[in-house]
């Protein structure tokens, strides 16, 4: 009785072919729906299993369901004019998947990726959302003069300069210790002598070689040779560090895609696909236990990028007011979300038709944007 009621509504709004399919299933194959009805549990409505997964499935305290997946289902049900009720499986993914496999629910919509294991146990509709990893970065800074100046004097720059001076002082002291007894080029008084030493170290390092101070002892000359050759490397290293610190300072917002991740410090959340992906790419990763801590590190500037579930990044930035951050329009390691149905579900064809109609409609983009913000490239999985 019930099945026929639903079928009538389905056929009223869907393709004529689906009618054949449904009639076939109704009369020839014992459907899970019927099996359950036969067991005495009469269903007045389609039962949709779901579980809380922000931002795909949300539920307020008065029991109102919302979220990207829920809104999609409501539109599909509206399209098909079928009555339905949600059944909650919060934090019980195994139970939810078990329910759809055994036909205890007629459909499952949450954030279920299409996988081989899933396909072996139950059926999937067409995908409606391309989920995956996104890259969050800090937004464009204001182009003020002070900002540019502080950008120039990065921490890296200060350390490089300090290290250089430290090294000059160290070599200067060494050469003075070795040469102080000669009293010829290096003054025997500590303050003057060390100054002479630092001067000599700088003149030698830059291969200026005035020759006004010359080591005379064996020890002094050995040190001089070591310092001369070491200087070649050190000067190269110093120039490179300085140059890169200027470049990074100026191109702070220069992360425009996954290729730029290699030259910056990237954050990930431990035990997530984001971390696995970064490790597989051999990228310099810093892990945090929770995504909010990674977001804070990104905002502070401890890291320059964060790789995490794109939908959650978009939702957090939009819903929790992370104004300084934005998500790049790339999706990495794509997983496609679909509605799960029991095997041989009689409603699969009509749900597919309605689903495609909804996600290709103009309203769907607005719905996606309402939950995920301006993260771009969030079209359906086509």
């Amino acid at each position, binding site marked *: 009785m019930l099945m026929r009621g639903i079928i009538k509504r389905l056929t009223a709004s869907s393709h004529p072919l689906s009618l054949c399919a449904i009639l076939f299933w109704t009369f020839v194959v014992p459907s899970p729906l019927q099996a359950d009805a036969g067991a005495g549990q009469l269903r007045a409505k389609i039962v949709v299993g779901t579980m809380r997964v*922000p931002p795909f499935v949300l539920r307020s305290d008065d029991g109102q369901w919302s979220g990207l997946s829920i809104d999609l289902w409501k539109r599909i049900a509206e399209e098909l004019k079928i009555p339905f009720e949600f059944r909650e499986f919060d934090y019980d993914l195994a139970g939810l998947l078990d329910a759809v496999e055994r036909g205890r629910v007629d459909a499952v919509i949450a954030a279920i990726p299409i996988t081989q294991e899933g396909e072996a146990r139950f059926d999937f509709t067409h995908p409606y959302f391309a989920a995956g990893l996104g890259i969050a970065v800090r937004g464009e800074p204001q182009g003020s003069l002070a900002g540019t100046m502080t950008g120039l004097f990065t921490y890296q720059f200060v350390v490089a300069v*300090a290290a250089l001076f430290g090294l000059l002082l160290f070599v200067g002291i060494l050469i003075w210790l070795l040469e102080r007894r000669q009293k010829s080029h290096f003054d025997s008084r500590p303050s003057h002598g060390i100054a002479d030493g630092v001067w000599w170290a700088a003149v030698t390092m830059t291969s200026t070689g005035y020759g006004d101070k010359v080591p005379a002892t064996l020890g002094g000359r050995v040190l001089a040779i070591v310092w001369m050759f070491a200087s070649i490397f050190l000067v190269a290293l110093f120039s490179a560090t300085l140059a890169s610190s200027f470049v990074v300072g100026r191109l702070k917002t220069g992360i425009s895609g996954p290729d730029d991740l290699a030259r910056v410090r990237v954050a990930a959340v431990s035990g997530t696909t984001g971390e696995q992906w970064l490790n597989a790419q051999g990228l310099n990763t810093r892990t945090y236990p929770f995504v909010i801590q990674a977001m804070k590190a990104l905002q502070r500037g401890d890291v320059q990028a964060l790789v995490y579930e794109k939908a959650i990044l978009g939702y957090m930035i939009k819903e929790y007011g992370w104004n300084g951050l934005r998500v790049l329009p790339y999706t990495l390691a794509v997983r496609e979300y679909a509605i799960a149905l029991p095997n041989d579900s009689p409603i699969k064809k009509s749900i597919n038709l309605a689903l495609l109609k909804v996600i290709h409609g103009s309203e769907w983009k607005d719905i996606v944007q309402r939950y995920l913000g301006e993260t771009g490239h969030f079209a359906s999985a086509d």
Partner: protein
Amino acid sequence: MQTASKFSVLRVCARLALYNLPTLLICVALFLYIGRAEEMRTSLSELVQVVGSESMRPTIGAIAEDFMTRNPLADITVRGGGSGDGIAALLHGMVDIAMTSRDVTPRERAYVSDKGLELSMVPLALDAVVIVINQANPITVLDVEQIRDIFAGKIRNWSELHGAETEIVPFARAAGSGTAYLFGEHVLSADSFAASVSHLSTNEAIVAEVAARPGAIGYTGRGALRGVGNRVRMIAIRSNQQSPPTMATTESIVSGSYPLSRKLSLVTTGHPLATAKAFVDFCLSASGQGLFQRAGYIEVQSAAR
């Protein structure tokens, strides 16, 4: 002689300073770096995100304002959305603190322990709904089911409850308040309000109406009965016909024997960051608890005493 030696001492000092400029620079750089790291660690400059129960949001928001006045570097944002979504956001690591007006479910706990973490729940205040009737009404006890039948329109006259031959005039709080939610959840459950029920937007309005009409019954937050005196009468409530009637006293609410109460708590995972922890502690301090009291809740501090 005197001036010359003074002069040379000065000159030596100046030279020493000049020659040691590099050392000085290194020291300054090191100091700046350590200073920055230290500042990050010690000052309460963190951003803290609090999400959850709509009924807790105004009070926690006020406490956050107070906290930020005392710690100008801290940035605490408080958002609603409901206890369930708040806990979900916390479990997914999207916020620092969840506000909840219900207990954490075993499934939520299991989800967290599967990840090798633990939840820590800090009760801040208690909320209770009291049923009030007119002073002239002789009824003293009602059970939850009878109250439900009154508001669902199944019981329409006090005589059905062995009272006077008077028509019952029920008053309810407009939907959206924590009081209305608690009543809906604990009393009404699946039933819906009868058409005869008038919905008022404040506890004070309910007290005024019930005080004015002999057949009236209404519910308010317990805090609203302070200073009302003898204008209305609070009745005792039984969970069912067998259980003992209970008045809404601080003791009965704290012990949980009063059926229409709930606990307002903050939840964090594992070890919260310094600022988040300081904020939770501040909610338990005299100033935080004072704001809960002003909002009509029972502070846990007084409950502990």
